């Protein structure tokens, strides 16, 4: 897999470049590993404030992930480009970004129950299939739904 996991948010603009102003997160690197989708829409449920974080294991964050698997991602349908949570560190969740080619459904984003959502235009993200489920736990601190134990398989 290629692609950086760095994503920076200043409250108005998303960026991936090193040194970009704003709060720095780790995202699912698959979201940046392919051909970016031009003129997409991102729903950024995160705040630039460094204190705006919760443990991934917080029940609110767990339930938002369950809801994403159950009905959020299927509702987005073909307009979905990708989804990533935003890891602050190996323990803490700083928010989530859902990217789509149309912003109509963003009002129902379950991650907006954790941190308020802001809709912005973006050219940063490529298409990543939504997680097949039902894994909700993270793999070694990776930003859900990224990561896997795949290198260890077949032992």
């Amino acid at each position, binding site marked *: 897999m290629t692609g950086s996991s760095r994503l920076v948010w200043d409250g108005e603009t998303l960026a991936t470049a090193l040194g970009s102003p704003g709060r720095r997160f780790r995202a699912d690197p698959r979201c940046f590993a392919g051909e970016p989708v031009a003129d997409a829409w991102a729903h950024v449920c995160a705040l630039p404030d460094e204190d705006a974080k919760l443990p991934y294991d917080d029940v609110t964050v767990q339930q938002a992930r*369950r809801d994403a698997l*159950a009905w959020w991602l299927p509702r987005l349908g073909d307009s979905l480009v990708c989804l990533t949570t935003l890891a602050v560190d190996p323990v803490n969740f700083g928010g989530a970004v859902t990217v789509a080619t149309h912003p109509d459904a963003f009002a129902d984003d379950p991650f907006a129950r954790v941190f308020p959502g802001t809709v912005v235009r973006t050219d940063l993200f490529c298409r990543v299939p939504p997680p097949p*489920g*039902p894994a909700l736990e993270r793999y070694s601190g990776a930003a859900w739904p990224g990561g*896997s134990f795949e290198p260890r398989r077949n032992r």
Partner: protein
Amino acid sequence: MAVDAALATVPAPGSAFPDLELPDHTGRLRSLTEIAGGDPLVLVTSRGWWCPKEQRFLRGLVALQDELEIAYSRLAVLSIDPPEVSAAFRAGLGARFLFLSDEERVWLDALGLSETTDTVHHPYRPATFTLFPDLRVHRAYNGYWFWGRPTLEELRRDLREITRAIRPDWELA
């Protein structure tokens, strides 16, 4: 997709389950390898939403999904229901796991899982396979008779056995 129907052999324990690629309940193509994602996988073939036995069995699996979600294990259900029907059935069950649609019956005969007694729907024969991440079959259950299906305890046992085999840090010491 061309599938060799002449194979017509139900995957047995120790053999490799074919890496099917079929639309999920949203219509997106998914391979079994992608669904497993390096984790143990429970694959259920199901007659379809209309069968009372399937409804009951899948409600049981919904009760297990909370554990699967935090235990690095996957679950998928394969039937001939179209994606939009599977999506509605999934939502009605409260399921968060994935449904695969073989509406065109591409794999039905190749897997040897055609339900011969149902000449109306021509569905899958109910079966459950517990698979290693590389899709090797650990156990296979014939669910034609309802009591042939695995209990949740049997699935827990299988997933424990597979996890023990694939995770090098399983043992305490």
